[in-house]
């Protein structure tokens, strides 16, 4: 244990990480954001889901430093009278959960399909054609289509009830080709290498070679795209919510908060949109910055399928 710890401490990864201010500052901000999102019930001064504590008379109050603001609501309130700060924390939690869930699903589908089509020629053509079509269609588009279809299937009311798992499913189904292509390309590159032939000469089975030899060597590019994909999934969720295909106003994500505020922006009530907007951009930005850093550090050739 202590040996592992020391190895980690002495590794290049840690060394370069602490040498790069962009990397550790981004990481620190991300850490704060994630902790405050998941600790929302502890940190938030108000509970936006508890109808009894919300007073419609408090609606559209500006931030505390404005003349009409009150200290009770630091960043003001939204159109329903919910405390912006608390609602944003809860909203960020939903955004992050959906983002991570969707990426887990994409990665699961994508890695399996990528491995299969990279190693078994028969699957390859058809699976990659599907992935190509889906990618050339843009993942947003697919997500919007699936979302629209789901909404028609379930009806608006039912859709809103199961919005969170449904969004994970929609974004996951829309974006798996990214993973599949990355994994496939790196499987194709790895399986040409002689260590795979060496494993075959030993007589190991295909499944074992795939699992023990090829998969571990495709993980660097997977890790690199994972960070970017989390950012993309959060963005997709926000876009879907903005179009009314995402989280309902009663349980808003950052995206649906921005949507709700958009109607009021012309009347000068900017804070309902701008604050969640800044938080959303900050969240995505730090993830992207970390993703860039990880990519530069690992520097895998992100194989262009």
């Amino acid at each position, binding site marked *: 244990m202590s040996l592992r710890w020391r190895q980690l401490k002495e590794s290049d990864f840690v060394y370069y990480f602490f040498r790069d201010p962009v990397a550790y500052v981004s990481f620190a901000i991300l850490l704060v954001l994630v902790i405050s999102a998941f600790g929302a019930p502890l940190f938030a001064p108000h509970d936006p889901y508890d109808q009894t504590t919300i007073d419609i008379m408090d609606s559209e109050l500006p931030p505390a430093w404005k003349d009409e603001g009150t200290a009770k609501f630091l960043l003001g309130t939204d159109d329903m009278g919910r405390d912006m700060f608390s609602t944003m924390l809860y909203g960020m939690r939903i955004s992050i959960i959906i983002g991570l869930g969707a990426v887990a699903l994409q990665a699961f589908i994508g890695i399996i399909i990528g491995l299969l089509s990279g190693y078994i020629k028969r699957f390859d*053509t058809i699976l990659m054609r599907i992935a190509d079509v889906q990618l050339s269609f843009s993942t947003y588009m697919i997500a919007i289509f699936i979302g629209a279809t789901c909404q028609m299937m379930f009806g608006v009311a039912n859709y809103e009830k199961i919005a969170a798992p449904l969004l994970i499913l929609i974004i996951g189904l829309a974006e798996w080709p990214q993973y599949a292509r990355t994994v496939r390309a790196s499987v194709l590159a790895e399986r040409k*290498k*002689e*260590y795979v*032939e*060496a*494993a*075959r*000469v*030993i*007589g*190991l*089975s295909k499944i074992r070679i795939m699992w023990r*030899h090829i998969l*571990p*060597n495709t993980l660097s590019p997977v890790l690199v795209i994972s960070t970017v994909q989390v950012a993309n999934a959060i963005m997709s969720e926000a876009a879907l919510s903005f179009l009314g295909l995402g989280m309902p106003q009663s349980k808003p994500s950052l995206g649906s908060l921005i949507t709700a505020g958009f109607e009021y922006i012309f009347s000068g009530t900017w804070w309902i949109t701008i604050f969640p907007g800044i938080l959303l951009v900050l969240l995505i930005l730090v993830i992207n910055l970390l993703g860039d850093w990880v990519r530069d550090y690992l520097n895998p050739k992100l194989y262009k399928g």
Partner: protein
Amino acid sequence: MKKGIESMKTDVLVSIRNLVKYFDISGGWLEQLRFTGGRISRQEVIVKAVNDISFDILKGETVAVVGESGCGKSTLARTVMSLYPPNSGEIYYQDKRIDQLSEKQLKYYRTRMQMIFQDPYASLNPRMTVEDILSEPIHFHHPSMTREQVKEKIIKVMKQVGIDPDWQDRFPHEFSGGQRQRISIARALTLDPDFIVADEPIAALDVSIQAQILNLLMDLQQENDLTYLFISHDLSVVEHISNKVAVMYLGSLCEFGETEHLFSNPNHPYTQALLSAIPKLGQRFSHTRLPGDVPTPINLPPGCVFHTRCPYAREICFRQVPQLIKEDGKTAVACHGAAEGWLK
């Protein structure tokens, strides 16, 4: 079969008979479309990597396969190792036919035949420690062996190839190219094989390291009673290490025979050109120029594959594929000129 090849003897370890290996690289049917002469046609693109090759490898000897890049020598090695199924022809290991066996039936032969690869950087899995790399074959083929026995075996092979057994937990990237090649050799030795295919084992190494690895291979052959199929493009290395040489050109065997005899008395015009091109220390060149370039293995020339570049080619060479014929009892040559006596 053919007169040129010795009939099977008991001391034949591996025998290759009329081996043919083609690769279809035409892709899907849309990729096969061609537009020629005003009409659309479908065309398969087939690389004829190995064409009808036969020779025997006797127990304890080193047979080298030489040829320029793209001549099919590596494909031959991999087909012999059952990494590729041959399109036709047979491979025998101690008189047992092994080219049509399933992976399960092959399991025993996998312990008898092992392989060493060219690129010391690609041939070791970068995510496995030396111990993992060396123990994997043992665990797979001898699951009943205890942890201690496996450990003992690993230490033994590591010592044999000259790697400090204390370095078992290290990863491949912590070793130099020469050391990695030693580990790669150690992996081949863990199963105590009789027969090792070495595919350009020293091509990627520096001169002083090449000598170390060649010496190691020769030592191991003595200690472990090994038989080698040694693939190389470096003729001076081949001359040094092998008992017999097979010269390949464009997927075909040009000449096969005892090293000393073949080097001092090459019969095939291609062998002659190849030998004359070896840079020799302190001598000016006197090489035979070959006109033109090597044709692609996709469109093999008819007749003798070498006729497009052969300075002696005659009419028969354009039509008829020459057979491998043993002329003087020592080397077998596939050349009409040599067979009919008009070459020289």
